[in-house]
């Protein structure tokens, strides 16, 4: 037998080996192609996931009624689409040192964290087994979900953050990677967009409610105003007719004088009412009324205002305490308007304080921060919710109690506007049955040392 010529069996063996090798090579290629295809499909799936997540999330605009509900449903959509173990939405706290956890999903019976101290949001947006977990900020970040493998996005403008996490690195099919940024940032931006939309919707609803309330208040004001105008006019017309026609006969001078007094009082009240309305109208329409500013003694104006208010207080048996320190600087302001404000506050305090109560007026210079005029009483007070109403034009008109008292209810809004015209502020502290304190602050730039009057003024 020639050793160089293979036998048919040897040929068959070599042929079998050839086919086996080729089959394995082809098989390996098929396997790799299959794997490439799967990888491509998984990549395509990620894009589809982003698109689906965004599509589903935007439906929340119509399906939710509150911002809180948006957060809960958003996380449900995120978890459903990313198949992650846990997810949370965070909002950076105003102190910028912490993040408040607003919504969580996937914690089961475990209590999720309320907040996380994280002064600077991390620059990375995912963790893998290669991340140094023992060092901040990764160490801090994993505390939110208490899971090691995270995908995170933070939006600097809205200061919202979205984080998802997994127990195992290769969750479902692979670790987090750079390509996932689109997903997490996309989800966060949709969430922020919906939150802003919802907030705008809520603001619009509130504005609508406010406008409707203002319209109702205005209607009530007009009704009340016509009543307030008619009452003194009726008195004027009625009493003047009695006098003109001498209906009580010629010899009742005393009675006619009394009626003339009523006519005068009604005319004066009417004038005051019309002045208030004119002031308010100017402030409402023009935003301003001209101030005639000059330096004056604060004590003088306080005492003039007191003179207006004292008779009513004495009549009701209310003690009035006034304190204006000596050596007060001059006030550069419109004295007529400041007197109007103080008189109005004293009048209100007297009006809403029962007999035997006390009204106090204190004036002092708050070191470097200007002049403070404080009017307090031991009267009926009001709930904190009613304070903005009392300060709003027409607002007090709706207050049932105030309608039991004389006045248009325009005093406080006018006072506030006048103080603000002087660059100051008017604040109210009050509680039902605890009395009320109105604090006026006028800026330090309006205070001039008495000795330097005529000079440009030394500002305290």
């Amino acid at each position, binding site marked *: 037998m020639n050793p160089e010529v293979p036998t048919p069996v040897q040929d068959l063996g070599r042929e079998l080996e050839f086919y086996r090798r080729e089959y394995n090579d082809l*098989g390996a290629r098929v396997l*790799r192609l299959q*794997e490439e295809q799967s990888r491509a499909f*998984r990549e395509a799936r990620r894009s589809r996931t982003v698109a689906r997540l965004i599509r589903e999330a935007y439906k929340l605009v119509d399906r939710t009624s509150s911002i809180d509900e948006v957060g809960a449903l958003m996380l449900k959509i995120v978890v459903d689409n990313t198949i992650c*173990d846990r997810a949370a939405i965070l909002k950076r706290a105003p102190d910028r040192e912490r993040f408040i956890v607003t919504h969580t999903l996937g914690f089961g019976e475990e209590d999720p964290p309320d907040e996380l101290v994280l002064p600077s949001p991390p620059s990375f947006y995912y963790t893998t087994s290669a991340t140094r977990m023992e060092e901040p900020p990764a160490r801090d970040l994993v505390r939110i979900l208490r899971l090691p493998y995270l995908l995170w996005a933070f939006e600097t403008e809205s200061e919202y953050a979205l984080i998802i996490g997994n*127990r195992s690195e*290769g*969750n479902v099919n692979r670790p987090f990677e750079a390509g996932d940024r689109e997903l997490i940032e996309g989800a966060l931006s949709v969430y922020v967009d919906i939150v802003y939309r919802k907030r705008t919707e809520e603001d619009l609803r509130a504005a609508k409610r406010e406008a409707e309330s203002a319209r109702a208040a205005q209607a009530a004001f007009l009704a009340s105003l016509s009543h307030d105008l008619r009452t003194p006019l009726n008195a004027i017309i009625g009493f003047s007719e009695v006098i003109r026609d001498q209906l009580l006969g010629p010899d009742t001078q005393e009675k006619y004088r009394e009626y003339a007094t009523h006519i005068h009082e009604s005319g004066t009240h009417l004038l005051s009412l019309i002045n208030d309305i004119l002031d308010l109208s100017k402030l409402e329409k023009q935003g301003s009324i001209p101030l005639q500013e000059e330096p004056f003694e604060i004590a003088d104006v306080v005492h003039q205002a007191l003179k207006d208010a004292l008779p009513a207080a004495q009549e009701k048996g209310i003690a009035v305490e006034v304190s204006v320190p000596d050596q007060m600087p001059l006030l550069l302001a419109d004295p007529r308007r400041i007197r109007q404000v103080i008189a109005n506050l004293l009048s209100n305090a007297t009006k809403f304080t029962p007999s035997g109560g006390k009204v106090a007026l204190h004036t002092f210079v708050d070191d470097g921060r200007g002049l403070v005029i404080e009017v307090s009483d031991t009267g009926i007070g009001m709930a904190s919710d009613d304070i903005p109403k009392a300060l709003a034009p027409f607002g007090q008109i709706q207050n049932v109690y105030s309608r039991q008292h004389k006045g248009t209810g325009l005093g406080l809004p006018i006072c506030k506007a006048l103080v603000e015209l002087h660059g100051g502020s008017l604040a109210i502290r009050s509680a039902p049955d605890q009395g009320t304190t109105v604090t006026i602050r006028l800026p330090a730039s309006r205070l001039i040392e008495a000795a330097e009057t005529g000079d440009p003024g030394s500002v305290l």
Partner: protein
Amino acid sequence: MVRVGFSRNVDSGTAAKECARPIREAGQATWAIAFCGGKHNHEAFLRGLRDELGDIPVVGGSAAGTITRAGTGYGGFETAVAGFLDPKDRPRIIATGRLATSEWDAGLELGEAVRKDAAEESTVLLFYSSVAATAPVRLHPGSPLVGGFYHGLGDRNLTLVGAGTLTDMNLSGSWLFDGTGLAAHSAVAVVMPPHLHAETAVLHGCVPVSSFMEITRIEGAEVYELDGRPAVQVLEEMLGVNLTSGQAQSPSLIATLGEKHGDRFGPYHEDAYVNRLILSANASTGSITLFEPDFKPGTIVQIMSRDNALMIESVRKGTAEIMRRTANRASKIALYIDCAGRASARSGAPVEEADVMLESFRSDVPLIGFYSGVEIAPINGQSRPLDWTAVLTVLYSEG
């Protein structure tokens, strides 16, 4: 009559209530099959279900996802319940907690109990909790459980269909509803009454991509050598990737080992193969860990590629086949047990094969399905645990 409810509510009690609603509206359920997404509190879910349906036996357990006509998904909050209203359909339920000590003994206990009660040619549903430990992941193998079951069953002939339950696709845990409550490391056999029979189709999707290889060294589920070479090396050469690097994809996503039954050199037929997923590849030992320990030294295997197109095709063909076989039957319910690895997120398939099944299958039969860890179905006349398959079973009544 059977009614199926579905929910994806994140609150476990509310999810139970939503699942129970269509059942309660139809009448009083006598027992139920329930599957509950892994992110839920399973105890609260079961409690919620009992609040709605009464103190009835509930079997099933955790699921990586659920499949119903009302909804399908694997986000972790999906739940599904099938309520059986006809008292005649109430099964005998046998549970064991011996899985933790010995899967074989657990199977043996169930098999012996079933042998005493079950009529010839009965149908038995077998559910068990798949995950034995999580760090590192260790599964309760299904093959000794099923082996023990058949041993205990003796010569009785019946149809066995079932699954290992999972809480998610990452094998993080598993729970079982065993007919009386919630259990771990347990198995439950649901022996259907004699008038209920089953038709089953096993849907595959793997093709061989290598010549035959012999397992030359194996210990349990740990395959050390193929044709005398380290198993990891053989696979890496085929795949062209490093399987043991931390960043590598899970090997279970890439390939399986398949054993061909029947004529080894006969034409390819998907039903001839039993595939084993690869749980992990180990650099230090050069070995690969399979999901099941049923291969032995000398077992001839092929490396199999998961083929998504073939998977979809198999679903279409298998669904059509089972519809043909049950066309004139009074079908009660269809049960779809779907390997979690076949879900699009994991397999990379362009469509969900569960959706393909739902579109293809007849809509007048109630259907409940879930994503499982291991499927149990008949291959060549006897059931065994399967990997990367879907098992579509239709229960129908006769007489």
